[in-house]
């Protein structure tokens, strides 16, 4: 876990350095403001409406704590102070002590509860994006190249359907076909890491990732296709063709490279939908990730867990959005320049 965080911080640092410090800091500041407001709002929503601190402690811990456990929670998490002070303590606990609260139902600290689940969700999201790109890039290139031909129409139809189909429907359908009918994949997804059992890992993650990847791929195709069509009409593409470059080379080297920004944008804008989708998909395929944990905690009213979970998810979204933004300006210096001037 620590290694992952360190690698992430290093990558982010590299991006900030490459993207230009001034722009990066500006974005960073903006995102910190958003993070603070959102987490404060979540804290207020979670903790408002209790008549006294002990009742609040009961709520936050979930279940039926004994009086001295509740009293300890009141003391440890300063539940008797006003919400702003509680928030400041929460911020300190979150960042300095990595203390996210305690879950009575699961009988362990929320941090311990969430640690392994973060991994599942991050892997699932990553696979979904990779799958999505693997499906989308060749399809979009083909659609742009064969623009308005039947194959393009068919791709458009599929991407329209894929974009709109609810994850619930897609997931149930895939599960019916591959798990119940053809029995290719196991019915219950157990927690399995690639370094423990690679085959099992693939079998457990393939369908959930595919369920998430299909809507993603549809959005990527839409973005990339229209961008490619515009790029294919640019002068440098005509020049490349005139100089005798083969269509394949023109498409994949000249046009695609200059259209990839739209894909990066699409990856960023679809992030929220992707994380929302993991909730449904993890629940459907019985994967133990952040999403299924959130559903369970919400249903059992385990408010410490819910609050910390949502905060972790928001932090993830905010950091990845920053990374996407910076990547954007690293791969296209024109963006950096335009933004520096603006």
């Amino acid at each position, binding site marked *: 876990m620590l290694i992952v965080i360190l690698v992430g911080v290093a990558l982010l640092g590299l991006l900030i350095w490459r993207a230009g410090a001034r722009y990066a800091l500006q974005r960073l500041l903006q995102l910190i403001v958003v993070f603070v407001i959102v987490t404060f709002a979540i804290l207020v*929503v979670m903790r408002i409406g209790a008549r006294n601190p002990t009742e609040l402690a009961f709520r936050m811990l979930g279940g039926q704590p004994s009086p001295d456990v509740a009293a300890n929670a009141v003391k440890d998490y300063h539940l008797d102070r006003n919400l702003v002070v509680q928030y400041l303590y929460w911020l300190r606990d979150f960042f300095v002590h990595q203390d996210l609260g305690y879950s009575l139902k699961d009988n362990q600290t929320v941090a311990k509860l969430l640690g392994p689940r973060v991994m599942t969700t991050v892997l699932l999201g990553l696979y979904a994006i990779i799958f999505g790109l693997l499906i989308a890039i060749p399809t979009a290139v083909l659609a742009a190249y064969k623009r308005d031909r039947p194959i393009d129409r068919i791709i458009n139809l599929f991407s329209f359907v894929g974009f709109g189909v609810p994850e619930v429907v897609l997931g149930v359908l895939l599960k019916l076909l591959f798990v119940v009918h053809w029995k290719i994949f196991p019915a219950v997804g157990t927690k399995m890491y690639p370094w423990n059992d690679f085959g099992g890992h693939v079998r457990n993650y393939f369908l959930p990732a595919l369920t998430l990847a299909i809507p993603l791929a549809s959005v990527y195709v839409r973005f990339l296709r229209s961008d490619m069509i515009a790029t294919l009409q640019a002068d440098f593409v005509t020049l490349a063709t005139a100089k005798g470059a083969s269509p394949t080379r023109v498409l994949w080297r000249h046009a695609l490279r200059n259209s990839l920004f739209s894909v990066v944008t699409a990856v960023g804008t679809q992030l929220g939908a992707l994380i929302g989708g993991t909730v449904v998909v993890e629940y459907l395929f019985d994967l133990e990730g952040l999403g299924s944990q959130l559903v369970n905690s919400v249903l059992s009213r385990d408010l410490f867990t819910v609050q910390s979970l949502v905060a972790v998810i928001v932090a993830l979204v905010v950091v990845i959005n920053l990374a996407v933004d910076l990547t954007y300006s690293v791969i296209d210096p024109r963006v950096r320049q335009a933004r520096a001037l603006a």
Partner: protein
Amino acid sequence: MNDELPEDATQPHGARRRRPSVWLVLAVAWLAGLALLTLFAPIIPSIRDPDAKVRIAGKVQAAYKLGPGNTAWWGTDRLGFDVFARCIAYAKNSLTMGFVSMTIGLIVGGTLGIMAGYFRGWVDRVISIIIDCLLAVPALILALMLIQRLDDLKETWSFLGPLTRKWQIILTLSLLAVAPLARIVRAQTMALRDREFVLAARSIGTSNARIIRRELLPNLVPTMVTVAFTGLGILVSAEAALAFLQLGIKESWGYMIEANRKQIDKGWWATLFPCLMLFLTVMSANLIGDRLARRFDTKEASV
């Protein structure tokens, strides 16, 4: 090369034929037909009461006993209810909840967007921060959290009493619709506010309220309607997802799917038909939104 391809999506709308496509007609027909059917279902004799179990010769049938057929058109579910009757009856919830929350979202999001785009300055800054914050929390996660909390708060605050589960979901869903709508309306307003007709209105001393009402709003309606339809699809599927996660109402397609999916090998019909209803409804709303977007040439119509 374009003159032989009148249907091309990437062309400006002026070059396209005016006749609506077959798909659009089908989509409108599906939504309208479904609305009528669900409204009149109680008085149509061939549709069963959704809360009465299917009986043959007075006997309740076992779980998944009847497949799709004459007695029950789409079979019976885990508890012996008529799947077709339930699918039709629950359309009312999906459609009204989607529609009402979209309307609230349109009013609130539209107002915020126009204010931000028209007044600029600190109003814009504050509203933009609110939008950014709302967008930072993935929609479904925000919904999960809020619905459960509204439930709890009802116990503490008696004035929340009339807030049934259905209204909790409507409120939450409309909150989800606010941010994307406000962002698009803001962008459109900013593009419009410096156009000549607005400047002309302002130069003859028209008040801000009147400029917004008479000059800006009519120009914003196409965008808002377009986004409303695409958004309707998203809200209907969000409602189903909530019900699927057991946090919505029980009278919903999503809950039908959840309740029957574990025994899908015994009765595929009880899971797949609600899926089909959900799919077709969401697709129809999306299709109408998509066609409107092309017609009005709206950018960024995907919420």
